[in-house]
């Protein structure tokens, strides 16, 4: 029987038409009747435990008290939320909740934004009749490196535990004991080491869960709020950046169902302290014989203008821009193509995929399409490690019945809930793809599952060592699946915005081809002459720097020495370059090789727009003044261009946004006003249609020579790494796991090593071995960009030698 479009319920004597299938507490809230609650949360399964939301519902045997959080609405339901019986029950529950609560509001972080306080004011008794001893616990206790627990304040609402179990899939906190002794606890020797632990702090309706880095820092009423987005990864979770006295001190999720549904990864939530880190570059730096010296902006810019002006356009390259706003990225492209006269721009660092594939692939999925997919294919990096909030969305889809297929050379966070896991030896993906596509023997069931549409395919490069052509082959296959929609999986904060703004050798702003003469003409009409041919990619530029063909490099927040597949090529290129200018917030392995470092303003300091992996544009807002003398890139380049004799007109963000809307067709609807007032809740997805699809993949064998006496490499990205931002964010700086080399038991026996032994990789890096049957035979899994693994080249295969305790003695 189909559900009716609406049902009629009567609340406090007033009839309302409400949507069927929802719980009474939510239906009441939507028609303006607030029922108090603690355990109820829209995104969590109802448990009916706190009993705060009791209301009277008329039944066959008269009125009875029922919890409105577990009661589905039904046609003709008559509800009283204000009767004397209801009021007494609500007062009673609040009195019960408070009898053992410490009432230490004056020193509690939650005070001022506390549902227990607020609901006690509105629904609670004026005073307590409790004169006995309160229940006490030692407090606070650490349940993880990030989160503290005060069991005295806890009202046992089950929100944190339900989140950890159901949403995050990290069942590491639980109720222990019973009755009056019930408490939240971790298991012995197992901390609440979840990538999502910070969400429990935000979910907690009292001050029981607090984050280490916010504790005692501020009072909620002193905080200033900025609706913005996180730029940690390309999901761009909507977030409230909270400041006090000019410092960011907390980031909370904003519930944007189109994007993050109110969740953040701990990296999203706790990265902010890097903005205020001591190691921030706060003044321009000019390199002398004995190192950097501080300089004025005027001096540094004049030097840079002189240097850049002294080269032919195609002798200059720019790498970076994927952590900047769309406006900054657009201005960087305009500066390079028009002022410098170079098409050598690349927001990626050789670690990504074909820009045309990322920017123009159709049919493009939206994140929310996962909710209605029958089948989800994830063939790419471990989502839990790279795009954690998207990982939560896939988990939700599977919880609601979607069939998940995961393909990867090593175990991923999603394997446990996948219907099918396709494991392949790193480097042999194309062969596996061919077999899956054909539904060959072992892959018949997988192929059949993929035949159930609608399919949402999430495709990306599973590791830096994987041939990016494989992504194109997988995408091409995935497009053939029934009702398929696709998302590519590039990770960096605003990489999709940067590509849309033309920060790719083959792309112009608005996802136009750099070799499209009409697109070039349009830009030349607006600006002036620009290169008519595609430029060089980051890897080509680095290699040509090494060769001396390219002489000057502009690095924008990019660290190719860490991030590109060939770290030594990057280091050599930077060292041999005649002139390198870096706009960066930190001295990284790359920017420290520059001749001039200009302090760039970063997330939290800049204004503008950003675009996420589904093409959704959201407003990113400044919460604080840039630290020190840091400046936004559009301002830096505006000044620099003036010194080079060209007026960019990019000093004001609004002017740039308007220019993007004029020049980039897909962005015609994007104005700051629109994003602020019309589309504020969800942002706006910039349109994409097949006619603009630049990606013309012709399936071809992606061949990676497999050398029998070497192992193929899976350089697995990890959420917490040795990246400069992670290192400088105090809460998460210590969280990267110690690096290991994981190999299949069969390879372990060939090498005659066991857990805890060490292997030497390419005769340069020594790592402890983990024997793991989830690793494909013949592959070695090494985490990318960790303290112990930096400098490992992302080659297809590596030499692996056991390290013998007595090896030196033998030598």
């Amino acid at each position, binding site marked *: 029987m189909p559900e009716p479009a609406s049902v009629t319920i009567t609340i406090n004597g007033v009839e309302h038409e409400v949507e069927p299938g929802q719980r009474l507490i939510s239906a009441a809230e939507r028609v303006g009747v607030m029922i108090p609650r603690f355990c109820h949360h829209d995104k969590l399964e109802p448990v009916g*435990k706190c*009993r705060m939301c009791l209301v009277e519902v008329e039944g066959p045997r008269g009125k009875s008290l029922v919890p409105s959080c577990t009661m589905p609405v039904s046609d003709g339901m008559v509800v009283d939320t204000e009767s004397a019986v209801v009021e007494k029950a609500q007062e009673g529950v609040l009195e019960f909740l408070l009898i053992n609560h410490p009432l230490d509001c004056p020193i509690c972080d939650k005070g001022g934004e506390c549902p227990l306080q607020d609901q006690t004011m509105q629904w609670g008794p004026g005073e307590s009749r409790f004169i006995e001893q309160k229940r006490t616990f030692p407090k606070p206790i650490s349940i993880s490196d990030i989160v503290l627990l005060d069991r005295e304040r806890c009202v*046992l609402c089950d929100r944190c535990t339900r989140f950890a179990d159901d949403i995050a899939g990290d069942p590491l906190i639980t109720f222990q004991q*019973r009755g*009056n002794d019930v408490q939240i606890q971790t298991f012995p020797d197992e901390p609440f080491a979840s990538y999502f632990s910070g969400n429990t702090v935000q979910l907690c309706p009292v001050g029981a869960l607090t984050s280490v880095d916010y504790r005692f820092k501020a009072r909620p009423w002193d905080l200033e709020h900025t609706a913005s987005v996180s730029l940690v990864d390309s999901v761009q979770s909507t977030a409230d950046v909270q400041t006090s006295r000019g410092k960011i001190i907390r980031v909370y999720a904003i519930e944007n169902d189109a994007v993050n549904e109110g969740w953040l990864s701990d990296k999203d939530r706790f990265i902010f302290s890097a903005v205020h880190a001591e190691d921030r570059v706060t003044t321009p730096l000019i390199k002398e014989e004995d190192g950097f010296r501080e300089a004025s902006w005027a001096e540094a810019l004049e030097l840079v203008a002189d240097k850049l002006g002294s080269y032919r356009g195609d002798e200059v390259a720019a790498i970076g821009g994927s952590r900047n706003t769309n406006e900054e990225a657009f201005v960087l492209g305009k500066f390079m193509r028009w002022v410098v006269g170079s098409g050598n721009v690349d927001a990626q660092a050789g670690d990504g995929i074909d820009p045309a594939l990322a920017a123009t692939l159709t049919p493009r999925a939206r994140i929310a399409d996962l909710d209605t997919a029958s089948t989800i294919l994830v063939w790419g990096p471990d989502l839990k490690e790279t795009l954690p909030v998207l990982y939560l969305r896939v988990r939700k889809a599977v919880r609601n019945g979607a069939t998940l297929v995961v393909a990867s050379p090593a175990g991923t966070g999603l394997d446990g809930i996948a219907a099918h896991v396709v494991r392949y030896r790193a480097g042999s993906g194309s062969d596996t793809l061919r077999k899956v596509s054909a539904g060959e023997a072992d892959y018949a069931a997988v192929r059949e599952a993929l035949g159930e549409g609608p399919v949402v395919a999430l495709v990306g490069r599973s590791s830096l060592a994987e041939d990016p052509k494989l992504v194109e082959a997988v995408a091409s296959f995935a497009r053939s699946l029934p009702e398929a929609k696709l998302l590519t999986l590039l990770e960096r904060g605003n990489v999709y915005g940067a590509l849309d703004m033309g920060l790719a050798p083959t792309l112009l702003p608005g996802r136009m081809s750099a070799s499209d003469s009409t697109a070039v003409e349009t830009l030349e009409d607006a600006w002036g002459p620009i290169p008519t041919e595609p430029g060089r990619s980051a890897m080509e530029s680095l290699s040509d720097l090494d060769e001396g063909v390219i002489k000057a490099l502009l690095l924008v927040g990019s660290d190719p020495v860490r991030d590109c597949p060939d770290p030594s090529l990057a280091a050599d290129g930077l060292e041999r370059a005649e002139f390198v200018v870096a706009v960066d917030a930190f001295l990284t392995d790359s920017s420290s090789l520059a001749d001039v470092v200009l302090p760039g303003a970063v997330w939290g300091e800049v204004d503008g727009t950003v675009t996420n992996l589904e093409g959704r544009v959201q407003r990113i807002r400044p919460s604080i003044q840039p630290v020190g003398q840091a400046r936004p890139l559009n301002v830096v380049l505006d000044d620099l261009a003036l010194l080079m004799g060209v007026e960019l007109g990019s000093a004001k963000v609004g002017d740039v946004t308007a220019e993007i809307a004029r020049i980039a067709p897909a962005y015609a609807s994007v104005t700051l006003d629109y994003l602020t007032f019309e589309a504020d809740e969800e942002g706006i997805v910039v349109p994409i249609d097949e006619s603009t699809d630049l990606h013309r993949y012709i399936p071809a064998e992606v061949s990676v020579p497999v050398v029998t006496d070497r192992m193929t490499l899976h350089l697995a990205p990890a959420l917490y790494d040795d990246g400069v931002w992670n290192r400088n964010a105090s809460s998460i700086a210590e969280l990267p796991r110690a690096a290991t080399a994981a190999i299949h038991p069969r390879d372990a026996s060939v090498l005659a090593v066991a857990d805890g032994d060490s292997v030497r990789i390419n005769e340069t890096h020594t790592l402890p071995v983990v024997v793991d049957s989830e690793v494909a035979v013949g592959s070695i899994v090494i985490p990318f960009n960790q303290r112990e693994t930096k400098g490992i080249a992302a080659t297809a295969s590596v030499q692996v030698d056991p390290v013998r305790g007595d090896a030196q003695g033998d030598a």
Partner: protein
Amino acid sequence: MTTKILTARMEAHPEDSHTLARYESTGGYDALRKALAEMTPEQIVDSVKASNMRGRGGAGFPMGVKWGFLAPAEPRYLVINADESEPGTFKDRQLLERDPHQLLEGILISSYALGVDQAYVYIRGEYPKPARRLQRAIDEAYGAGLLGENILDSGFSLDVSIHLGGGAYICGEETALLNSLEGRRGEPRLKPPFPAVEGLYAKPTIVNNVESISNVPWMTLNGGDSYAAIGPERSSGTRLFSLSGHVKKPGNYEIVMGITWAELIYELGGGIRNDNALKAWIPGGASAPWLVPSEHLDTLVTIDDAAEQGTMLGSGAIVVMDETTNVVAAARNIVKFFAHESCGQCTPCREGTSWLDDILQRILDGQGRPEDIDLLLDVSDNISPGLAWPPAMTTICPLGPSATAPITSIMRWFRPEVEAMIPMSEVASA
């Protein structure tokens, strides 16, 4: 009055009533043979419905009606609730120890009737001997082809497994029991769905008490109608009462309901110890409101008469208190039990029962305040609005409201005595 269904064998053969040999030599498993050979599952269900037997676990819900709710999905489970944990209750223990095959035969017939091929018996962890006896009976039954595959060549198969509880009264609540059986915390579930629709492992499940199921062989042999004919119409059959407290002859008594409380206490129980005066009794387990001699000695022991007096026969545990009893101490003992056994998920029960316990202890310590009487009643009212029986609840299950029964009882029948313990009250001052 002398009809014995459940305890006849153990009384006649106290040495070996628990063995398969004795069981079979006294007509045991005849009912199973009859059921498998001559009856359809529907006929057995009809027989149980016809018996009108009301469940012996405490709630008194008609067993046949409960069976009628079983959803058609498969697999289905039968779970025997042997988590007999209410203070003063020890009847199921005797059935498990002394006549385990009678229970097993009941399980077999019921499983056949309900389309079950796996039954569980959830026994409280503090019952090692009953568990051992039942396990031995199960082993004997497997050895004799009475359990396992293709029982008695009928094509019907059944496995029975024992699960020992970890020591929590709340696991006697059927949905908490199912959670515990699944390896989860013993917390009552939200209802609906009821276990008959979504029970163990989210499959249709019937949860019945040991005593209820032990009656099934007799019903099968003699017909549900014959069972219904025993005793008063809505309290049919015999019933095991656990009589304890200040009586001369405590113990389990299988009786036909419909006698008076005076007969039960003074004739079966042999009267009050030392011939003291009777002060009050709990008629059906710790959660039942108390009865008193001035009002209730002539009341009939039936489920409906108990309900009319605002109490219940519950789990059949009758606790008798004589004139020496400090009623505040007695009430506190019971409240403390419920506070200790609260699972802790609902706020009113978790916080309220401990609070009531604290207040009662304070009164016992001579630190009571006159306002504590109203406070006790109002806190109770916030757990069980209206303080009536059967209780209205602000909680998921009736454990919290049960803790209010002794408080309303002492306030109703012994209020001056409570006030006398409070130094500043008018009664104490006088």
